[in-house]
C-alpha cells in the first residue's frame, strides 16, 4: 500500500496547482528571467548583442538622470505611502471600532467602489480638480478666498501624491481594518481596567496590535506606486517622469532593451529589499505578540 515518495494528498495537490502554476511560470517567470538575462547583455543598434557586460548596471547606478528619477520615484512612493496610510488609519479604526457590525460590510463596500472605476478617468479628473482653472482653484477664487490660483497643487509632485493616495486608499484601509478586527476587545477593556487612559490604551495596546496591518498596508501601497506609469504621464504632464516612464522610454522609444531591463531589474531589487525589511519588522512585531 505504501506509495513511494509522495502520498495521495500531495499528488492531487500538485495536479491541481499545476495549471495555474505553469501559466504563471510561462507568462511571468519566463519573461522576468528574460529581462534578467537581457540586463547583462550589450545593446547594439536595434538589436541585443549577446555579450556579457556590467555596463547597464554601471550606467543605472551612475547616470545622474537615472539617479534623479530613481530617487524621485522612491521619494514620491514613500510620500504617497505615508500620506495614504496616515489618512487611511483613522478610517479603518472608525469602521472597525465604531461602526455597528451589520454596517461594516457596507462601509467596506463603499470604500472599495471607487477603486474599481476607471483608473485613467479618475486620474484625469484629479487633474481637473487640481488644475490651474480646476475645481479647487475656481471655487476658491470664486468664493474670494484666494486671488490667484494655488500653484502648489499643480502638475507637480504634490498632485501626483494626492492622486496616488486616492488611487490606493482601499489597499491601505483593508489590511489595517483586518488587523484591528482581530484585536480582542477585552484586551482594550483590560488596558482601561488596569488604569490606563484611553489615549495610553490606544498607544500601548491598540497600535502595537494593529502594526502588522499597518506594515502590510505600507507594502501594498508602496510596491505598485513605485511602478506607476499613468499618473506621472497624465498629471505630471510627462515633465516629471518616474521610474516606470524611464523603463518604458528605454525599452521602446530608445529601443535600448538591455538598459531598460537593467532598470527594471534594479527597480525590482529595490522593491524586494524594501519588502524584506518590512517583512522582518513585521516578524518582530509578531514575535513580540506570541
Amino acid at each position, binding site marked *: *500500500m*505504501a*506509495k513511494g515518495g509522495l*502520498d*495521495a494528498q500531495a499528488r492531487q495537490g500538485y495536479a491541481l496547482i499545476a495549471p495555474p502554476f505553469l501559466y504563471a511560470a510561462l507568462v511571468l517567470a519566463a519573461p522576468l528571467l528574460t529581462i534578467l538575462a537581457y540586463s547583462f547583455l550589450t545593446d547594439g543598434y536595434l538589436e541585443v548583442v549577446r555579450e556579457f557586460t556590467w555596463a547597464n548596471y554601471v550606467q543605472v547606478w551612475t547616470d545622474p538622470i537615472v539617479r534623479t528619477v530613481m530617487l524621485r520615484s522612491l521619494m514620491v512612493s514613500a510620500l504617497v505611502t505615508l500620506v495614504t496610510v496616515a489618512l487611511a488609519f483613522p478610517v479603518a479604526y472608525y469602521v472597525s471600532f465604531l461602526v455597528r457590525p451589520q454596517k461594516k460590510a457596507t462601509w467596506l463596500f463603499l470604500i472599495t467602489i471607487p477603486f474599481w472605476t476607471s483608473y485613467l478617468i479618475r486620474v484625469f479628473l484629479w487633474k481637473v480638480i487640481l488644475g490651474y482653472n480646476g475645481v479647487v482653484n475656481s471655487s476658491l477664487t470664486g468664493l474670494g478666498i484666494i486671488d490667484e490660483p494655488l500653484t502648489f497643487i499643480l502638475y507637480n509632485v504634490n498632485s501626483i501624491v494626492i492622486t496616488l493616495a486616492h488611487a490606493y486608499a482601499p489597499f491601505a484601509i483593508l489590511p489595517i481594518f483586518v488587523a484591528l478586527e482581530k484585536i480582542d476587545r477585552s484586551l482594550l477593556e483590560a488596558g482601561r481596567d488596569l488604569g490606563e487612559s484611553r489615549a495610553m490604551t490606544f498607544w500601548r495596546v491598540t497600535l502595537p496590535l494593529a502594526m502588522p496591518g499597518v506594515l502590510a498596508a505600507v507594502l501594498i501601497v508602496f510596491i505598485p506606486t513605485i511602478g506607476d506609469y499613468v499618473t506621472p504621464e497624465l498629471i505630471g504632464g510627462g515633465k516629471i517622469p518616474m521610474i516606470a516612464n524611464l523603463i518604458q522610454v528605454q525599452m521602446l522609444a530608445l529601443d535600448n532593451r538591455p538598459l531598460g531591463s537593467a532598470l527594471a531589474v534594479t527597480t525590482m531589487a529595490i522593491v524586494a529589499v524594501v519588502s524584506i525589511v518590512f517583512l522582518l519588522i513585521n516578524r518582530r512585531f509578531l514575535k513580540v505578540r506570541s
Partner: protein
Amino acid sequence: MTDDRKPMIECRGVHKHYGDYHALRGIDLTIRAGEFFSLLGPSGCGKTTLLRTIAGFEDISEGAILIDEKRMDEVPANKRPTNMVFQSYAIFPHLTVAQNVAFGLRRDPRGKAEKSALVDETLALVGLRGFGNRAAHALSGGQRQRVALARALILKPKVLLLDEPLSALDRKMREQMQVELIKLQRQVGITFVLVTHDQEEALVMSDRIAVMFEGEIAQLDGPEALYARPANRRVADFIGVMNFLPARIVAEQGGGATVEVPGLGMVDLPARQISRANPDDGGPTIGFRPETMTLLGAGATHSQPRETNATIDEVVYYGDMTYYDLRLDGAAAMDGKARPVRISMRNVFGRDVQEVGTRTRLAWSPGSLVLFR
C-alpha cells in the same frame, strides 16, 4: 458474550504514517457484527485516523483491513459497505432535509415513490417525521445529528461509523442522544463504531471499548472490566478517577501477591487484581476508585472487612456527591511523601457532610484494589 457473532471489521497490523509521524502503530482489532464498539482516547491518539482508514478516507501504510471478511485494500470509500456520521454532521446546506437523506439513493434504481417512502420511513426512525421539506441550514444541532444518522442509515450499511457525533451538543441533549443512539442501534442491528474522547459516553453506550494512546490500543474490554480492572495506570487515569499509592511486594504465590501499602497495611491480592502491562511507570502501585471506600461517621457500622484511620484535608460538595481528600495515617511512612487520597460519598438522606480537619475512619475491601506492576 459476543464471541459467537461473526467478525465484521478486522484490522491486522495496521500502520499509518504521515511523513515522519507514525499515527497508527500496529492496530490489531476485531469488531463483531451487531456490536456497539467505541474507540476512546485523548485527542491525537489516532482514534479518528483509525476510523477514517476503516471508512476508506485514508490509505493505510501497512497491514490489512477486512470488512465482512473481504479485504478493503483496493476498495475506495464510496464502494465500502460503511457509512459515516461526521463530527460536523456535514449536512449539505444547499439541500432540504429530504434531499440530504435521499442523497445516497441517487444511483439506486428504485422508483421515485419508493425512494420517497423510504426517506419518510428513515426520517421517522430518527424522530424527524415531517421534517423533509425543511431547509437543512435552518436546523438545530440535535436535528442535524438526526439528519446525518438518517442519511447514513438509509443505505443500510454493514457498519455505521460515528466520529465524535455528540461533541457539538450541550450536556442535556448529549445525554438524551446517547440513549437514543443505543436504542437505534438495537433496532437496526447494524454494527456501530463510535469515536469519542468522552469516557463517560463510551462507558454508557458501548458493548466494548478500545482505549487508544499514541497510535496503539492500550486496552480492549467491556465497560465494566475497563473501569474495574484497567490494564495500566494511564488507562486508569483516563477513565474516571483513580487513587494511586506506592506499594511494596512482600511475597508472591501462584499468580497472586502480598503487598504492603503505606496507610492501608498488608493486603493479599489474587491474580485477577494484578495488571502486569505496566513496565514504565516506575515501581508497583496500588490503585482504587474513590467510590469503593466508605467514610464512616462517628459510631457508624459497615460491612467492609478493613478499616483505616484518616484526617479530612479538603471537602468538595457537588450536590448529589461530596468528594473528600484524606490523609491516611501512616501513608507517608514509605518515602516521607504525603499522598492525599480522594474518596466520594453519595449524599443520601441522613448522612451529614463532614468538615475539614475531622479525624475519621475509612472502611474498604482488598477486593476493590488493583495492583499495577
